[in-house]
């Protein structure tokens, strides 16, 4: 062995003994993870946690001085875990902020919908109150008109409605269909009642029981038309009232009197009041 070879071997041995550990794969991985975390939500939302993770990375870097790769790897592993935890906490902060924003929007939307619903409710209450006042006034007018009518006319509340019966003699000469002046006055008050009621009505002329049946039916038909036309002329709307053709058998019974037998009668039937759906109470009569 030459002297030169001995010197080379000695040099190689010395350099191997002083070899310096510069990094490990795990430490490289930790460095990359930290670089990546600096660009993510952890930097903005959990900087303190990321700074703590950096301290652990520094400790791992310092481990290189020991020359022990296992120690460096263990410390790098801890640094990686700390970095990942900081990232998770950063995402958590962002999610919590997002949740809070959504809950605020939810509360605002709920309040807005509640306000709108309350406004609608208030408007509806006002409308209902107006309707109730108008209905009460109409019922009061109807009651007054009925009271006036009841002084001179028979009014009955039957299942088919309110029936106003006028003896034929109060409206017509016997065997005629022209209205008497006094009959017009009575019918004017009937018209006032019908207008107050604002419900559908029909005119039925009951034929006299005496005399020719055929002629009596024809006369009754004319009388019903005449009465209906007069009521329309007095302001009852044409759609509200119709004249019904007479039937061969009386639709309802009449008092057993010669007047009815000789000159028949006219019934004006006002349909029953509909049941209310609102909060107002029914007076119990049409």
């Amino acid at each position: 062995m030459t002297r030169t070879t001995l010197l080379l071997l000695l040099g190689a041995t010395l350099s191997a003994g002083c070899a310096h550990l510069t990094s490990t794969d795990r430490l490289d991985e930790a460095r990359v993870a930290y670089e990546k975390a600096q660009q993510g939500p952890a930097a903005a939302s959990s900087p303190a946690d990321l700074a703590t993770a950096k301290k652990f990375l520094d400790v791992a870097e310092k481990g290189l001085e020991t020359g022990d790769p296992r120690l460096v790897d263990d410390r790098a592993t801890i640094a990686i875990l700390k970095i990942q935890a900081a990232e998770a906490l950063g995402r958590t902060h962002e999610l919590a902020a997002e949740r809070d924003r959504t809950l605020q929007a939810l509360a605002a939307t709920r309040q807005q919908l509640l306000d709108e619903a309350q406004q609608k409710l208030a408007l509806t209450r006002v409308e209902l109150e107006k309707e109730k006042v108008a209905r009460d006034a109409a019922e009061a007018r109807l009651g007054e008109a009925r009271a006036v009518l009841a002084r001179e006319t028979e009014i009955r509340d039957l299942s088919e409605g309110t029936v106003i019966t006028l003896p034929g003699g109060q409206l017509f000469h016997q065997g005629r269909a022209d209205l008497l002046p006094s009959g017009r006055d009575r019918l004017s008050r009937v018209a006032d009642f019908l207008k107050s009621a604002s419900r559908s009505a029909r005119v039925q002329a009951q034929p006299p029981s005496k005399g020719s049946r055929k002629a009596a039916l024809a006369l009754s038909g004319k009388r019903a038309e005449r009465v209906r036309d007069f009521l329309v002329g007095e302001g009852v709307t044409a759609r509200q009232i119709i004249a019904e053709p007479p039937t061969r058998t009386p639709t309802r019974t009449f008092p057993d009197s010669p007047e009815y037998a000789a000159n028949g009668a006219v019934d004006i039937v006002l349909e029953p009041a509909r049941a209310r759906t609102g909060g107002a109470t029914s007076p119990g009569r049409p």
Partner: protein
Amino acid sequence: MRRWAAGALVAFGCACAGAPPLPADRLAQAEAEVRAAQEIGAERAPQAKVHLQAARDTITNARETNTDDPEGAARKLEIARAQAELANALAREQLARTEAEQAHARLDALRSGPDVLAPEPTRNAGGTAR
């Protein structure tokens, strides 16, 4: 003769002493962190569950290797603690995600069909990141 006997006793004592026990404080910290992760529901979050189990395994491994490598075992306890902390953070993230999704769902439901009388939900995670 006396010197020889004393030396033999010391040598025998050293041979019987074995490895030192795991550092009690590090073991306690790691185990406490594992318990904290369990309590917050890490078992129910898939990612958190993985790290929680890893922490348990690492503690077991530290106990097993303590005799041969006490320094390495002590470092393993620190790794276990960090693993449990990560499990804890991931579990909290999952909670926050669920709450954010639920809040979005409630807002969408309100906008599509308002139920203004429904009660407000109670919060769980509440920005509880540590």
